[in-house]
């Protein structure tokens, strides 16, 4: 009996010791017991400027082992995912205590909803690095709500992974204006440039006797007619609800015809919502038909847009709108059958399978086409890109040249987390990602995987193959459009199904059920209905001097 008691006590003691040891094992985790160089953010190999931070990593005396952490980089399916995963692995090799998880979300809506909901719930489960343009609110609001960080100081800091060159100097300077919000706060880091344009099958074009890519609407229609006569679908473009790629064209036309009115929508001194920062930006900007970049960074105001709409300065049924919709109606006669409900993926299939001669989309599609061309083997075709065209004869209603989408595509922001160590590591990973050599790896791996290289890199020092650059040139339009869409299309935010209703009117016009005149009047009436709803919802009085 006595022996049994002793054995029981001994067993209990051993078990207790084991449990206590297990409880404390975090501190003895081999992964946590980081080598000194890691703790200092400084790997042994300092010869390679990209692989190693150039500075000493701060306090050399700080040999405290760092806690293992995972930072989450949330992105969308195919957006550089292969390249980002390589960057995450490379970073983990340098900093074993930090794991970068590339979290791939299937679509933009899920991305937005998930981010807003997680941040509203405290943000602990939200990703650490996010796409600024997919967050479901304006940068100002996201900063004001404490969802993302201001990066003004961060971009000035020396980047240890780029020989001390700051992010500000390591990224093409022209696009920093796109990275600031209306309070002049930097909210994102631009990674690349995206643009919209036409892809075309050179083989089909040349068989139809067209050797040059069209540069005017007249030349484009001429080419599309020849292709149609030859029995091929001239152009594939989706106009399905939720996948309406014609919207970019509508926007480009409106931007072209109403560009001179854009300054009327900017905040002005004395406006209730004006700020010294906005004044500082807007006072340096001025409309010029010859300067397609005149409005980059401008701080606009919705109430001013609505006041402009109400003033009737832009005629929603006037000659410019008539020309826009006559042109788009003519274009619709060259589209694939079923364009009104066909999704973009199916439109793309028509192009890549050689059934459609041209395809309207954006620079992010280049990687996919390159991949598909490889898998087509003998059936691969010569292809190229061209821009949204001019009119052959200059029209005073459309001054200058058309603009399109031309903005940073991959816009990365840092989530405002409570845990400062996580924030610091997220920033460090971004510095690593924006080093020329790592960014080059990301681009190369993405091209190899056939994913979205969205456009030319904005990270200085990254070079793309000539072939890729040639394709991307077709998307470099005159500038980034800023159409005041509620002048003619109203405010869909006021009535979620108004977009579909507007599309229904448009299709009635395209199918000759209503005349151009009727269409423009009905469209203007729909815009009036949704704008007035929006004005009422937000209690605007259309006087920017007062704040509702």
């Amino acid at each position, binding site marked *: 009996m006595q022996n049994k008691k002793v054995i029981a006590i001994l067993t209990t003691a051993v078990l207790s010791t084991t449990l206590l040891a297990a409880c404390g094992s975090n501190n003895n985790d081999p992964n946590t017991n980081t080598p000194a160089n890691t703790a200092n953010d400084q790997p042994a190999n300092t010869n390679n400027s990209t692989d190693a931070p150039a500075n000493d990593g701060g306090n050399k005396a700080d040999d405290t082992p760092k806690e293992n952490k995972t930072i989450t980089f949330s992105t969308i399916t195919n957006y550089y995912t292969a390249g980002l995963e390589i960057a995450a692995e490379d970073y983990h090799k340098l900093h074993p205590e930090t794991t970068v998880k590339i979290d791939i979300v299937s679509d933009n809506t899920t991305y937005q909803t998930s981010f807003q*909901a997680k941040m509203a719930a405290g943000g602990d489960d939200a990703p650490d690095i996010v796409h600024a343009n997919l967050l479901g609110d304006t940068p100002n609001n996201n900063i004001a709500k404490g969802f993302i960080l201001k990066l003004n100081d961060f971009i000035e800091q020396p980047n240890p992974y780029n020989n001390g060159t700051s992010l500000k100097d390591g990224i093409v300077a022209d696009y920093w204006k796109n990275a600031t919000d209306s309070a002049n706060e930097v909210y994102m880091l631009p990674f690349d440039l995206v643009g919209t344009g036409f892809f075309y099958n050179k083989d089909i074009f040349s068989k139809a006797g067209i050797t040059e890519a069209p540069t005017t609407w007249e030349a484009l229609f001429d080419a599309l007619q020849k292709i149609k006569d030859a029995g091929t679908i001239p152009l594939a473009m989706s106009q399905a609800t939720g996948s309406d790629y014609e919207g970019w064209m509508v926007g480009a036309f409106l931007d072209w015809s109403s560009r001179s009115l854009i300054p009327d929508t900017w905040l002005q001194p004395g406006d209730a919502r004006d700020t010294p920062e906005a004044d500082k930006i807007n006072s340096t900007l001025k409309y010029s038909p010859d300067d397609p970049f005149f409005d980059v960074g401008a701080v606009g105001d919705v109430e001013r847009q609505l006041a402009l709409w109400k003033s009737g300065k832009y005629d929603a049924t006037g000659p410019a709108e008539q020309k826009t919709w006559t042109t788009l109606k003519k274009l619709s006669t060259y589209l694939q059958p*079923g364009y009104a409900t066909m999704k973009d993926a199916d439109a793309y299939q028509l192009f890549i399978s050689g059934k459609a001669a041209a395809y309207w989309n954006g620079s992010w599609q280049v990687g996919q086409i390159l991949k598909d061309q490889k898998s087509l083997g003998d059936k691969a075709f010569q292809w190229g890109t061209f821009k949204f065209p001019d009119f052959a004869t200059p029209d005073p209603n459309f001054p200058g040249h058309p603009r399109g989408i031309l903005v940073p595509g991959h816009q990365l922001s840092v989530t405002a987390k409570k845990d400062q160590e996580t924030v610091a590591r997220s920033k460090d990973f971004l510095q690593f990602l924006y080093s020329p050599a790592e960014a080059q790896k990301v681009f190369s791996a993405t091209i190899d995987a056939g994913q979205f290289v969205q456009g030319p890199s904005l990270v200085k020092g990254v070079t793309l193959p000539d072939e890729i650059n040639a394709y991307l040139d077709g998307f470099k339009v005159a500038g980034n459009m800023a159409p005041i869409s509620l002048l003619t299309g109203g405010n869909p935010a006021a009535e979620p199904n108004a977009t579909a209703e507007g599309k*229904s009117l448009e299709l009635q016009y395209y199918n000759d059920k209503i005349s151009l005149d009727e269409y423009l009047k009905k469209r203007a009436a729909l815009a009036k209905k949704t704008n007035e709803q929006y004005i009422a919802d937000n209690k605007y009085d259309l006087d920017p001097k007062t704040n509702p």
Partner: protein
Amino acid sequence: MNLAKWRRYGISYLFLIPSFLFIATFLYYPVLLAFFHSFTKWNLVTSEWVGLDNFKKFFNEGTFATGAKNQLIYTLTDVVKAIVFPLIGAELVYLVGGNKIKYLFRTGFILPMLLPGVVSILLWQNIYDPTNGLLNQLLHAMGFTSTHAWLGEEKTAIWSIVMMGLPFISGLPFLIFYAAIGNMNQEQLEAARIDGANGWNVFTKMHLPFLMPQFKIVIILTILGSLQDYVKIMILTGGGPGVATTNPAMIMYNAAFGSSQYGYGSAIGVALFLVILVLTIFNLKFLKTDY
């Protein structure tokens, strides 16, 4: 509950409680929440009480009339498709001789139930494809020259959605009718035949009255499914061309998930719930059965 009852049924209650808690948490609670939010302007982050504004907005929405008209078409045709064709199928299988043949047909009609709904919708999308679709190719082979974008033209889009699933012998109604016919009193049927009733008489005077409870359940389930269904519309047409194929559930989806107007989306959901409730009560009250 007294001790004796507790002793008798306690274990059953204990086993029921977890399931009920799950249902209450993940079904009743969100539904109650939706009721509350239907009176608010809610975007997941902020919520503001707006009274009945969301409901007024729904009924004044430009697409409401089209959506309601389309829903009527979908629901009526869905009910017809769920009653007529499975019933014909069940009667025919019941009539064929030989158990093996019966088994073969029965399995044949039920097997498609194993196919995920989305696969079936995508299959029909391919059939309707204007460039490579089976339907156009079939029509061309028959000598018709015109090519239709079945889902892309306003005139044909909604009827293309309605015709999806031809010959409409869906597994569940077929099984319900077939099982009921098989359970009928064979002696009564035999007696009727001896008395001179022909096949049509037996069908109309004996089968149909006997199947009333089955009709009732199939009609309720079909109306319920039809009013809630937007998946096939979203996949096939996205509610287009324009708004030609939209329905209230689609309008709700666009409001909630397309524009983050969750309060408005909840109001449409509540309105749909009330419509379903009224139709179900109407069905239970006026489609009388002895069971």
